[in-house]
């Protein structure tokens, strides 16, 4: 118990927050020591679950509106103003839907698979700081923890495909396995470029490194930046690296044009063929939450993270220093950046046709991997040269 307590106590700022709150309670001595971190964990998981489902809800709404307007139609318009309550209505429908498990399916795996998929994204979400002073797990190796945790969704998808006892599902699962393994490499490698520039794996630290410059010009993406220390030379390989990361993220999250595991025109619905109701929606929650998470991670390392003109106003040494408003604005900033990233992903999805599975593999192994390696090489040489010249 003691070991767990220690580990849990390390989890984040939430524990201290709870402890402070409880300190004001009438008889704080009645609360056992181990209950405090546990409460923090439960509250944290609740918040994470809320974030994941809100991401999915807003994501589905956004997707339908974006696709609708791109295709000269409205999208959902009935439930609420421009259908903003539509995800809620869908959620109720999915909850009430008959839960089907096909005959001959591996029942245990069939039930576990959606939960596994969802839990992996919940774990990855915990690493994401929501504001400079509000986070669950400020892991020093944040990025790679996120990459590792999100790639475990593959296991859930393969499980789902295998357990469904359907040929289409099996195809979808096999494609997912091949595709995710192929795109882990370019994603990880091209993320090395900003990691080299930032000099840290931690998301909050990376964000802190991009402060200043009215909240915009300090971002790592600019070849010539204007941060807290005045003008500085950035890294020109950041822009191609962002494109590479974007493409790899599209593939990682199974978004078109890389939606091979689901290809509705080839494999009916891929690994989702036999799923229905709330179990089916778990996969979608995972998809939208993963999109959001990847977009936020990319924004932390390329597009300034918490830094925007909004936070710049309230930051320490800014126009109106205010810690609380700074944190709120930082939260707003990453949410906006995350959904802007999702918007671009949707825009791409509703524009492009789908690749074929061998082309997906070709693109991963023959195009993205060498190009990302080139990028890393170039960025490394650039940084080395900068270090040699500037010191």
């Amino acid at each position: 118990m003691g070991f767990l307590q220690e580990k849990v106590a390390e989890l984040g700022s939430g524990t201290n927050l709870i402890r402070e709150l409880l300190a004001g309670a009438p008889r704080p001595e009645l609360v056992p020591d181990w209950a405090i971190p546990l409460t923090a964990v439960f509250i944290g998981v609740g918040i994470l679950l809320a974030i994941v489902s809100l991401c999915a809800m807003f994501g589905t709404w956004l997707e339908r509106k974006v696709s609708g307007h791109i295709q000269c139609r409205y999208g959902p318009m009935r439930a609420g103003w421009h259908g903003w309550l539509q995800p809620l209505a869908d959620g109720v429908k999915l909850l009430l839907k008959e839960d089907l498990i096909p005959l001959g399916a591996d029942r245990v795996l069939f039930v576990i698979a959606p939960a596994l998929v969802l839990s992996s994204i919940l774990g990855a979400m915990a690493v994401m700081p929501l504001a400079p002073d509000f986070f669950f797990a400020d892991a020093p190796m944040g990025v790679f923890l996120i990459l590792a945790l999100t790639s475990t969704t593959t296991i859930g998808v393969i499980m789902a495909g295998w357990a469904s006892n359907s040929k289409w599902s099996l195809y979808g699962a096999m494609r997912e396995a091949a595709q995710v393994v192929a795109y882990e490499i370019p994603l990880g490698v091209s993320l090395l470029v900003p990691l080299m520039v930032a000099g840290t794996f931690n998301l909050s630290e990376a964000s802190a490194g991009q402060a200043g410059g009215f909240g915009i010009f300090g971002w790592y993406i600019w070849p010539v930046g204007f941060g807290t220390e005045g003008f500085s030379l950035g890294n020109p390989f950041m822009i191609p690296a962002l494109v590479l990361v974007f493409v790899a993220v599209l593939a990682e999250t199974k978004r078109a044009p890389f939606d091979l595991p689901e290809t509705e025109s080839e494999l009916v619905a891929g690994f989702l063929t036999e799923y229905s109701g709330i179990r089916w929606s778990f996969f979608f929650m995972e998809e939208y939450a993963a999109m959001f998470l990847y977009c936020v991670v990319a924004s932390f390392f390329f597009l300034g993270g918490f830094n925007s003109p909004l936070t710049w106003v309230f930051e320490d040494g800014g126009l109106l220093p205010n810690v609380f408003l700074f944190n709120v604005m930082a939260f707003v900033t990453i949410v906006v950046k995350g959904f802007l990233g999702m918007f671009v992903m949707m825009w791409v999805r509703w524009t492009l046709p789908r690749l074929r599975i061998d082309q997906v593999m070709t693109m991963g192994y023959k195009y993205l991997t060498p190009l990302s390696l080139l990028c890393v090489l170039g960025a490394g040489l650039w940084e080395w040269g900068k270090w040699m010249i500037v010191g």
Partner: protein
Amino acid sequence: MVTVSRYFNNVWKSFWTTMVGMRITGRYLLQKPITVQYPDERMPIPNRYRGIHYLEQEKCIDCLACARACPIDCIEMDAVRHGKELEWISFTLDYQKCMFCELCVYPCPKDCIHMGTEYAFVTYDRSEFKHDLLSYKGMSRDAKIRMVDADKKKAEKEAAKAAKPAHEEAAESAPEEGAEDAGAE
């Protein structure tokens, strides 16, 4: 070298055509949708629209021309004839069969069956698709009055006929013959 240039050409082409496509879709993203919110606003329906039939029952003479023209025999009609007037029993169209081809409309000698602009036809029971086009059953008021009038006239005529002697009738027709002769000359 050719391979390398083809490699980067491929990368560039993929990127560029994606950008071109995104420009097109992005432009539409900002435009007003062209669809309409169906039950609230509806598309205008042209005059020639081939929707659910309507029947000008007053004109119809129960000649079965439309039923015969129908390729799937979905029109059935039944009426009892009282002299010139019709007592309608049914005029049904089976919309489970009807394919809205309008072949029933143009053989009509009285131009009394038409296709309307109504297209939504929802029922809870299949049997209700056998739709009765009649606006009233039996005889119309006018037809009844006409029939009564006709009966009255007939009765009067017969009474007059019975009252008049035969030679008077012959005399009555004689001037007409004379007029005819005059016309011929």
